[in-house]
């Protein structure tokens, strides 16, 4: 996998690496047993400080997602892909219908993002959970 670092995003670089790894775990692009790219691999593609990569990997390790094996690399322990794929498929269909209505109503990319983010945040706040 390859990380894409956005320098001006305001999100700390190590958190970008953590988030992108989790995204790959969610989508199944990374599976248990897969090896994460070495710090050297990541650094030679992104020019990010090697300690930043290691910090991200330590965070993933702390969350129980990966495990370092000395001399071999860092390996994925568990996936974040959820099993309920039928439920997911129905939700996706619903969302696609909603998205068609939103674009038909003239909403732009950013309008949709803002709306979705707002509803999501209100929902999670009401449930007393944190996102």
């Amino acid at each position, binding site marked *: 996998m390859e990380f894409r670092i956005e320098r001006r995003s305001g999100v700390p670089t190590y958190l970008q690496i953590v988030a992108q790894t989790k995204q790959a775990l969610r989508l199944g692009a990374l599976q248990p047993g897969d090896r994460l790219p070495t710090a050297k691999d990541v650094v*030679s593609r992104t020019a990010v400080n*090697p*300690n930043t*990569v290691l910090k991200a990997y330590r965070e993933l390790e702390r969350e129980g997602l990966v495990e370092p094996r000395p001399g071999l690399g860092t390996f994925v322990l568990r996936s974040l892909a959820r099993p309920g794929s039928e439920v997911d498929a129905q939700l996706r269909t619903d969302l696609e219908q909603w998205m068609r209505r939103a674009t038909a109503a003239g909403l732009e990319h950013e309008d949709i993002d803002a709306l979705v983010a707002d509803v999501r945040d209100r929902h999670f706040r009401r449930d007393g959970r944190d996102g």
Partner: protein
Amino acid sequence: MGEGVVLRFDGVGKRFRRRWALRDCALELPRGRIAALVGPNGAGKTTAFMLASGLMRPTSGRVDVLGVDPGRSGMAAGASFVAQDKPLYRALRVDEMLRAGAVLNARGRWDTPYVLRLVDEAGVGLGERVGELSPGQRARVALALALGRRPDLLLLDEPLAELDPLARKQVMATLLAEAAETGTTVLLSSHVIADLEDSCDYLVLLRDGRVRLCGEVEELLAAHRHLTGPADSAADPGAGHVVHRSTVGRQTTALIRDTEVPPGFRAVTPTLDDLVLGYLQQEPAPTSTGSAA
């Protein structure tokens, strides 16, 4: 490799005729860091490299590099230095340049296969003339030669100057990848902060020959706040801890250190850019620890 300090300046001053290029400089560079030495032109960056590599001796104070005083015994065997103009013999072919490196470092731990790999990865042919390489290729040959000594400490004076954006990224990526593998400590100077953000984890900021900031980038950023607020606010953004403040129209921005955020101001963690620019614009430039003029 454990922690430890690979480079230390203790009260270091360097005077050229009547002008002090460096004054009362104290800094420490822990092992394994990728450190940025920043400051405006004339701040003393190159002088600091000259002292660390033993090409000059300090007028006052002590320099320690990997346990030796380079001003007396020459550059530490475990150190490697690339000067700003990347001094390569332009008339030589690349293979001749590499052989010169091998001969000049015959008594050290010169690693020919490693240098050949780095040159190959840079896409440079051994038969090419040094003078005909692109600036980016020349920078990578210079870096390969410096790394060929298998240094514990790599000193690079403006390694990215005069390179285009792609070459800058390639040189930095090569440097960091090799540092990741070998654990080499790096001290590099630059006045383009954008090149350093995300790449360097340690910062030494020089201004007017003095060390204004020295430490882990993460800790330095966490100790500061970048404030935005109304210019007419009665609230004083932390008097005494303001590094720099500027007011444009109705808005005041300020960089503050170790202090509470005043009411009415929005505070964010500064970027490396904010931090460096704040200290470079600080007025009046404070005179540091009790040095008699």
